[in-house]
């Protein structure tokens, strides 16, 4: 495998920096591009893009990881901002032009070949939006993709479920029967901030859930047909229109989620249980994998290797079955 730094420009002429991974053997036909995921750049949390790109290069794929403008080593400036507002701009397509430029770059370097896009979280919605707009994209792999929009008013406390907070609290509850725990609690060595915020979150998410149930009951059936929010956040209409476009144009779509990710609960509620029943013709248009216990970022060595296997197997199988080398 050969790894090389590369540079290309965005639509404003700013330099974007990336790494290409080239396989030793004759490469497969498809080119893989990892889309920028937000704050974590071309490496991604737990270095997942690096590990996956190397794995795919060993399987014969030429891959590119790159930093979008104003991130990592690339040019451009991002002034101080609200994190959730920034996420919202990503979810509405902030980095789509950069991915299109990355496709231009890969085509110029390796020839016009089908494109596979892969990304995590904010990068995943970028992948989805790009795939729906750019006919050069053949497959899209979306890991922990958000179906809702972030903005500064969004409260993650109400979007996280009671189960999330219970997960954090459970070890403390287990310790309540132990004398050492009480000694530590009274000695001033405990993490009072963490305990306080967990209890506060549990109470807030419980109230939010009750409120959602009350609102659901209060709404007419007609109103329920036009679902626009989830957990207090606005659903991203671009997600659903991107899905329809990709389905109609026969792009291959792979979604992977961690079962403990509140993004999965939102996907399930808004997409699987609300959108799909109204559009049964799309039921076979995508592949979905859920790693039951995994978190949003698959932040455990076991989940990372399971995730890698899922992506590799799907790409290799799809490539083989559609005539790739």
């Amino acid at each position, binding site marked *: 495998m050969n*790894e090389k*730094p590369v540079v290309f420009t965005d639509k404003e002429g700013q*330099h974007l920096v990336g790494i290409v991974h080239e396989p030793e053997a004759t490469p497969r036909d498809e080119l893989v591009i990892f889309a920028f995921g937000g704050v974590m750049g071309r490496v991604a949390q737990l270095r997942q893009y690096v590990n996956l790109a190397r794995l795919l290069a060993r399987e014969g794929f030429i891959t590119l990881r790159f930093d979008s403008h104003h991130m990592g080593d690339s040019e451009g400036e991002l002034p101080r*901002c609200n*994190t959730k507002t920034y996420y919202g701009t990503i979810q509405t397509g902030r980095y789509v032009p950069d991915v299109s430029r990355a496709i231009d770059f890969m085509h110029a370097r390796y020839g016009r070949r089908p494109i596979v896009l892969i990304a995590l979280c904010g990068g995943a919605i970028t992948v989805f939006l790009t795939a729906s707009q750019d006919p050069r994209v053949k497959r899209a792999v979306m890991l922990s993709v958000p179906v809702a929009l972030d903005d500064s008013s969004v409260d993650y406390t109400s979007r996280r479920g009671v189960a999330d907070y219970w*997960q954090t609290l459970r070890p403390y509850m287990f310790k309540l029967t132990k004398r050492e725990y009480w000694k530590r609690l009274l000695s001033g060595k405990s993490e009072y901030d963490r305990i306080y915020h967990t209890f506060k979150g549990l109470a807030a998410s419980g109230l939010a859930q009750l409120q959602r149930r009350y609102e659901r009951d209060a709404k007419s059936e007609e109103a329920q047909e036009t679902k626009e929010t989830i957990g207090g956040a606005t659903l991203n209409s671009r997600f659903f229109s991107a899905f329809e476009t990709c389905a109609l144009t026969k792009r291959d779509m792979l979604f992977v989620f961690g079962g403990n990710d509140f993004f999965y609960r939102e996907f399930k509620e808004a997409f699987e249980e609300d959108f799909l029943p109204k559009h049964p013709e799309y039921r076979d248009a995508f592949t979905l994998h859920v790693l039951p216990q995994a978190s949003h970022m698959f932040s455990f060595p076991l989940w990372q290797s399971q995730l890698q296997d899922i992506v590799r197997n799907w790409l290799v199988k799809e490539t083989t079955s559609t005539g790739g080398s």
Partner: protein
Amino acid sequence: MKQTPKTIVSARGDREEFLFFQNGEHRLFGAHFEPRGTATGLGVVLCAPFAEEKIYTHRLFTNFARQLAAQGHSVLRFDFMGQGDSSGQFEEATVETRIADTMCAADWLKGRPGVNRLLLVGLRMGAVWAGLVAAQRDDVAHLVLWDPVVNVERQLKEELRLALAIQTVLFRKIVMNRNQIIDSLLTNGKAEYDGVTLNHLQGWVISKPFYEQAIQIDLRKGMSGFTGNCLLLPIVKKEKKPSKPVVELRNVLKEQGATAELDLAIEEITFWTINPNIFTNHPAMLFDKTFAWLREVEK
């Protein structure tokens, strides 16, 4: 394999090159920022923090490097083996490899035309590697330790404790506590339960050699020999007294003949984690105090 670096020339004419350089059997990724205008002769090596903190602070280092280059310094930001774009896996890296990587990066920069002395800058665990390497070289004129981890064992134990919560997701209880994980790591080379690796820090697997070497480190004892200029800048959210270990480190450095200045950088967020409300890679006070100090010691 030797490769030609990829170079950016910005609209202002600033040159940055991206390349891999060899350290033994591993290839390390580097971003070299060439000095703007008349070069000062100072080469600056930036040492990133550890594990996930490195990813969140990448852009901060890029911004700092560009500002340093604009003042005429030659700057190298690099990735340790097993991190960023460098070769290898995180769990293969030890204290020895990180020190060797920092030495290699310093040698690479020192080999650039016109560079005649070095400044090492490290953040958190990166400050540990910078401090240890500065004590081993006679060409390091200046050293900047941003929020240094003075007692590494204590830091690792704290991070191992934070990683325990994830066990409850998999097993519905804590199956191995921190001390059991450490014992198992030191005895068996790993800590596993039901085939699942537990010797990790929020997903980053640490090895027995790394842990054994790391717990021996205490910067108050590990920097003997350094007699250059040192700035210690703990990063805090509000004005408060510096911690006792940092004060002790400053005192030790002074006693051994170094010029050691201890100050505080008051910043609204800690840049090595995600803040859900504020996003910025421009820590104004951290950069300003570092540049002000550098101007003084470079006079």
